[in-house]
């Protein structure tokens, strides 16, 4: 509390603390990380909330995201314009959702959005195919991928429309106790 920092006003930090799962120190540290990505673009002083967005090509260079096969989808999901340009708010939002203390429901919603490649609020067979290809990096044959997609949808689809709505996804994830510990990025 006694830190003399000029990056944010106290009110801004309190708002961040109340709306995300981070403490003041972590928010300041996140700002440092955000600034590292594009020091010429991101100002040190955020008290007047400048509208700066860092392009996705710079964001995916972060070590936490660099090797993640879903990095593009993650960055797109949390960006406002859908193209991956993250403002600082989006940046904090992203890491807050992936935080350890983030609740299961929030993680499920964002996981659904990430895996929904065509953004139609359903995970159809095509979405699942693309997910599997990213997971296995092309090690599975196309027939195997297709078989896995069909069987997965068959297993998880509850209302019989041959694609996974959010309810189906949520129901499936609730049976996976490891989801919470896996869907976690340490920053």
């Amino acid at each position, binding site marked *: 509390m006694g830190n003399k920092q000029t990056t944010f006003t106290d009110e801004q930090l309190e708002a961040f603390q109340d709306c995300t799962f981070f403490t003041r120190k972590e928010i300041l540290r996140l700002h440092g990380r955000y600034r590292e990505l594009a020091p010429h673009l991101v100002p040190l002083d955020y008290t007047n909330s400048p509208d700066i967005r860092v392009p996705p090509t710079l964001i995916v260079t972060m070590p936490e995201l660099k*090797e993640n096969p879903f990095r593009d989808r993650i960055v797109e999901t949390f960006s406002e314009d859908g193209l991956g340009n993250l403002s600082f708010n989006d940046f904090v939002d992203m890491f807050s959702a992936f935080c350890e203390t983030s609740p299961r429901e929030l993680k499920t919603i964002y996981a659904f959005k990430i*895996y929904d490649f*065509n953004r139609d609020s359903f995970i159809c067979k095509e979405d699942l195919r693309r997910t599997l290809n990213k*997971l296995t990096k092309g090690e599975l044959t196309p027939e195997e991928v297709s078989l896995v997609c069909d069987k997965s949808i068959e297993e998880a689809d509850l*209302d019989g429309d041959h694609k996974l709505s*959010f309810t189906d996804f949520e129901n499936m994830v609730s049976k996976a106790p490891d989801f919470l510990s*896996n869907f976690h990025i340490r920053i």
Partner: protein
Amino acid sequence: MAGNVKFDLNHPLMEAGLESPIDEEGAHESFRQLIAEQSQNGGPSDAFELQDLQRQLDEEERDNVAYLLGPGHELSQFKGRRQRETEWEDPETQADPLMGERWSSATMKILSSMPSRTIGRNRGAIISQYYNRTMQLRRRRQSRPAIRDFSRSARPSIRGYGIEADCTDAEVSKRDRLLNNLQNLSVSDRIQMLRAMPLNVSEKSELRRLALQKEKHTLSRRIPCCSQLKYYIIIGARQSWYSWLSFLHALHLWQVPLKRVSGRFGSGVLSYFQFLQILLFFNLFLFLVTGAFIVLPQALHPPEPPAEKPSFTGLELLTGVGYFSDTVMYYGHYCNYTLRKSCREDGGVHNVSLSNGIRPDCVSKLSYIMPLAYFFTIGVSFFITCIILVYSMSKSFGQSFRVDKSHSILAIKAFCSWDFKVIKKTSVKLMSENICTQLKELLAEVGHKQVKNTQCQRLGRLMVHSLAWAICIGSTTACVLAIYYCSHDMHQNLKLNLLRGPRNPLLIEARLLALPVLVSLINLLLPGLFNLAAWMEDYESPSVRTYVSIGRNLMLKVSVLGVLCFHWLGRVAADPKSIGLKCWESFVGQELYRFLLMDFIFTILDTLFGEFLWRLFSEKVLKRRRKPVFDIARNVLELIYGQTLAWLGVLFSPLLPAVQIFKLLLLFYIKMSSVMMNCQAPMKPYRVSQMTTVFITLLCFPSFLGASVCVTYTMWSINPSSSCGPFRGLKTMFQAGKLWVEELEKDNPNLSWLAQAHSFLVENPLFLFVGAAIFLIVIYFQSQVVDGQRKIISLLQEQIKNEGDDKKFLITRLQTIHEQKRTPARRLASQNSNC
């Protein structure tokens, strides 16, 4: 046609909806309004884009029946009809029954604004969902508005009943209602709600700002100052809570190393280090409690030193005797009298024993009854540890327990198996390969039917299993017998030494290390033998293999600890004079110190040989590319074993938790560097939350329960030494409490009820039986509740399936009706144009 359709076309509502079938615009107008309403809450939604599309279509004066490709799906590509036509031919969409239908654009628009498609996408949907939730939370918390806050126009019948009445303005939008609810929640509830909303941080902070603003306005109207004071107190408490959390976070040990480990090895190996942190926390707590209430007072008021004090040789650090034997480290050093600050001028400490009375010329205020303090500190710290353990066990169990047995294994593997923590390139590649292998295995399992084993094969497998179990049980029994005879031998040796007189004190001290070395050697080598036995066996699944291995290791450690406890409490404590011990409790404390230390030394040796040298060997000699795998289960069981020793030893050696803390700190760094250098990520799938639950359960049940049973037995039934320690002269340690209560009663006859209650509660076994029976009944009821929930889950799944069928049915019916209504209109329009 009307006969086939099930609903009533002449129904007034239907008439109202399809008012003028001739006028296409009329039908689309109502849908347009619906979409406009939905779009009001948010920015450009997908339905809005479809509305634009509809305008385009209307301009072309053709009602293009478009395939349902889903709103938002490549809408920017909807440029020309030709493009659309090529997309109709997409074979993927043909497979989907809903998508294969020819929907009119009107139906498409309706479908796109269905609630199930707007979850998480449409801000309006999120806001209304959270409005409902805050309403539920308010109802639960019952923060109803005060009656005086109602305006007079509220109807008397609803005054004070429904919460909806506090918002009398009917045109207030959902957002304002949400703000109203947020404002009326308590601060912590509001923060919890805000954090859990899947909205952008800027929108959430806007909501928060508005909610706080409103609160400030309503506050300024409030007249009584005490509620304003309460508000400020709450704000102040929250600020201090946040700064405390920041402080804790800064203190959070080892963030960087943990991140490195999780980045390279994933959640499995990370769980080992987190378990180490948990144990460190328990030991820190024990150390603080015993240090503050037992060690510190005794250190400040040391008893008279004995006549001869042995000098410090290096061997003490290993054996714990010699220089350390009469220090605060062991039970024997503690006095059995009341420590009092002197009231005489010379400032010396005056000690009065319990049996004597208080000296009449000494009236002091500070008195500290050592035996009582010792007894209660140990008891209370064990009790609190028990509560914390049971709480964390049940929390972990709740997180990992799934009521419905998993049917969707493939889907879970596809969506929930990627560990987002892993950031190292080689580990990511390894993880991809692992997932690939697991998917192939699952496909093979799911695809092929279970091959029925023939009788011969089953018998063969049974024989192999029984052979492996025979080896394991046989070796365990052999080792336990070895420990039994070795300890018996040592006991006899000590008796002989007493008769003959000591020959070489250093040699005798060193010989005390024989038993700990033997036990640690057994703990090191036997799990390897178990692994070999398991290698020849064939299990159905890797998790069964892990559980069997944990079971065998556990069996070994429990039997070893059992025979050791028998040796200490059954042999040494029963007849301490025969081996020349004045203070058997100190002896047992020293033994436990030696065991703990030997365990540590052998773990380091195992790390050195098992991991470092083995890696060098396998790389240089065997020329294997893969490094050895870090065996998480075995290492965690080692930690649990060490912790059991520490818990056993607290009663006899109050500083043992400090030794354990020191050991755990060193172990962390050694294991961390070893893992980073020598090991690779586990190749088998490791279910983190299940395993963590199992380990915490093992920490609670065999480990802590065993230790507390031993300590309770010691306190309850064994005679303490008569010439040392805080309980000398008493029949059992437990009597310290009783004597104190009797003295209280003597001093203050009004408190006799306390003495009676104490004797009834503590000495009557009926109390314990009733407590255990209630506990069992509660467990039985909970298991019945879980069974009932399973049944409800299967019922609900069926209902969801039925709802899906209903939805499909209604959509097709609506579509058919709409087309029927449209076809005569079109015929009419074309007829009119032709005329």
